[in-house]
């Protein structure tokens, strides 16, 4: 027996949550679906393809202060960032939820990134199954699925007139204690998945094609913007700088990307990745070899944003398919 809520009851539940929590939900702005703070349920869109930017910006914002430095009478004090509110992130897709699970491996490992940890702690994730994956989607090749409930606190799947509700974690159960739920014989519908990619041998194959001309040929087309990194739910590189005023200094961090020429530039001007090809190769080695070696998972959730938004169609699925063939090619040569 599953728990179910009507659309009307879901709306009143969300409305109630907003009394003491900040609600972040998908909404349309300039014809584009984005996650934003919503002040009332009417702003929320329940029917959307994947948002342009992933939910990572709510845990690892594009720009955020890390702490403030005060200097007075020879004393220096650090004032940490206080995150006052509790958040409910409504409408997160399983691919983005998997993205947070992967970001946790980076930010919550030792030493813990305290600002990220606090935002994660104070946020409850309410997932929403994808009933119709987009052509760029390949989440099922990256260890999740359009209705996977593993990485959220509550999972909702739309059925006729309502949603099937799964309370996944204690945090989720607590939030649902005030929801109006009823029993139903309806079960979570089977969702048609995109064709699965063969990914098992990819990390091994990556090891033997580092010097292959392949990367330079893909990089020919790459214009080296930062779109892929910034729309990615798992890319997490950043730059840090201090901005002083007469009273205090703020230490801030901002998104940065390995595709940018200045990213690896060291004092004195040396850049270990001076060419476009070396930067493009780094992106895919990080996602398909280095991250799996360190964290036993690809640094990709199959959300397909980079596929759909790349201005010149650099398609990670094409690379995943090509790389094992490159290995075969070099084996024949040897």
């Amino acid at each position: 027996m599953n728990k179910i809520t009507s659309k009307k009851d879901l709306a009143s539940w969300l409305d109630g949550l907003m009394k003491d929590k900040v609600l972040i939900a998908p909404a349309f702005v300039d014809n584009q679906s984005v996650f934003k703070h919503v002040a009332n349920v009417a702003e929320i869109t329940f029917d959307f393809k994947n948002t342009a930017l992933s939910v990572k910006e709510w845990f690892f914002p594009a720009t955020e202060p890390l702490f403030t430095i005060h200097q007075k009478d020879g004393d220096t004090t650090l004032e940490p960032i206080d995150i006052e509110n509790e958040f409910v992130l409504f409408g997160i897709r399983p691919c983005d939820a998997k993205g947070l699970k992967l970001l946790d491996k980076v930010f919550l490992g030792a030493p813990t990134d305290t600002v990220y940890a606090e935002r994660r702690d104070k946020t409850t994730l309410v997932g929403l199954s994808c009933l119709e994956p987009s052509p760029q989607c390949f989440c099922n090749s990256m260890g999740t699925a359009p209705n996977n409930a593993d990485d959220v606190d509550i999972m909702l799947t739309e059925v006729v007139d309502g949603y099937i509700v799964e309370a996944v974690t204690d945090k989720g159960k607590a939030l649902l204690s005030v929801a109006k739920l009823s029993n139903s014989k309806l079960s979570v519908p089977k969702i048609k998945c995109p064709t699965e990619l063969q990914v098992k041998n990819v990390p091994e194959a990556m090891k033997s094609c580092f010097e292959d001309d392949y990367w330079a040929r893909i990089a020919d087309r790459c214009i080296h913007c930062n779109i892929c990194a910034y729309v990615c739910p798992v890319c997490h590189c950043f730059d840090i700088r201090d901005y002083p005023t007469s009273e205090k200094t703020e230490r801030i961090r901002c998104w940065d990307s390995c595709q940018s020429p200045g990213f690896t530039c060291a004092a004195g001007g040396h850049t270990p990745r001076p060419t476009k090809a070396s930067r493009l190769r780094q992106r895919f080695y990080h996602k398909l070899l280095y991250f799996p070696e360190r964290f036993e998972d690809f640094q990709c959730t199959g959300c397909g944003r980079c596929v759909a938004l790349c201005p010149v169609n650099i398609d990670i699925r094409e690379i995943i398919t090509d790389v094992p063939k490159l290995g075969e090619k070099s084996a024949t040569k040897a």
Partner: protein
Amino acid sequence: MMDKNIVKQIRDKAKELLSNGTIKCVLGYETGTDGMNARPAFIYEPEDVDRLIFDNTCTHNLSTYLRDKRENPVAIVVKPCDARAINVLLGERQIEREKVFIIGIVCQEVVQVSWGELSHDAQMRCKICNQHTPVIYDFLIGGPVDESAPKAEPPANVTAMEGKSSGDKVDFWSGQFSKCVRCYACRAVCMGCYCTVCFVDMLDPEWVGIKIATPENQMWNTIRAFHLSGRCIGCGECARVCPVNIPLDLLNMKMEKEVGEHFEFVSGLSSEEPAPLASFLKDESLGIGE
């Protein structure tokens, strides 16, 4: 919609130039991974020319790659708008004419391109375009086009923006720039943005600051628009690639309109005439402190 005759001529010419050693690489188009929209293609071997295509999804302005490939002679497939970009690059001494073989295509229009979706709607810039034959080419594909039909100019959305109050314009653009994530795709895709160190990447002194926040985003986008004034050929790629849908082409079209009105200048029609805001005449009077 693909014209088989145009495609055959592109492939034949590419094969000839690669086989006889005139060039090392062809910058053209091939079908992307969605099976419906084109993407840029770099062809090095005569046996690979059959990858080349041309249709109304070939929106990319390939001239943006010419500086990357300027060591060796290349051939490039250009639409009339892209041909003007080549003139800008030639005029600014960024590429050498002898090293670029220009395959010009007579173009009616390109459609709005978005991965995985096939559109039949012409791009806005194409609706007001009155130049269907490239201004510069070595080999022309396609027949003559009647250019006499008058087009709605200036673009309706520029006129609409001009009609707004200053306050409304500020609200509109701050709203748009608040969405900017400074991914620099507008810069990366632009043939005119080629500075070795862009002002926005200057760290010492730091000119803009690294924050991805409205004031910095506004500074970035405004200065970029000024740097392109009189150099932008209106390919609209900046707006197409923007992941958060900022209508950057609107800003650039307005600047081109201003340059046109003040200097009677249209960028890229010739490689000889210097861009008004990117050149300085010895006897020029600035009208300041004189």
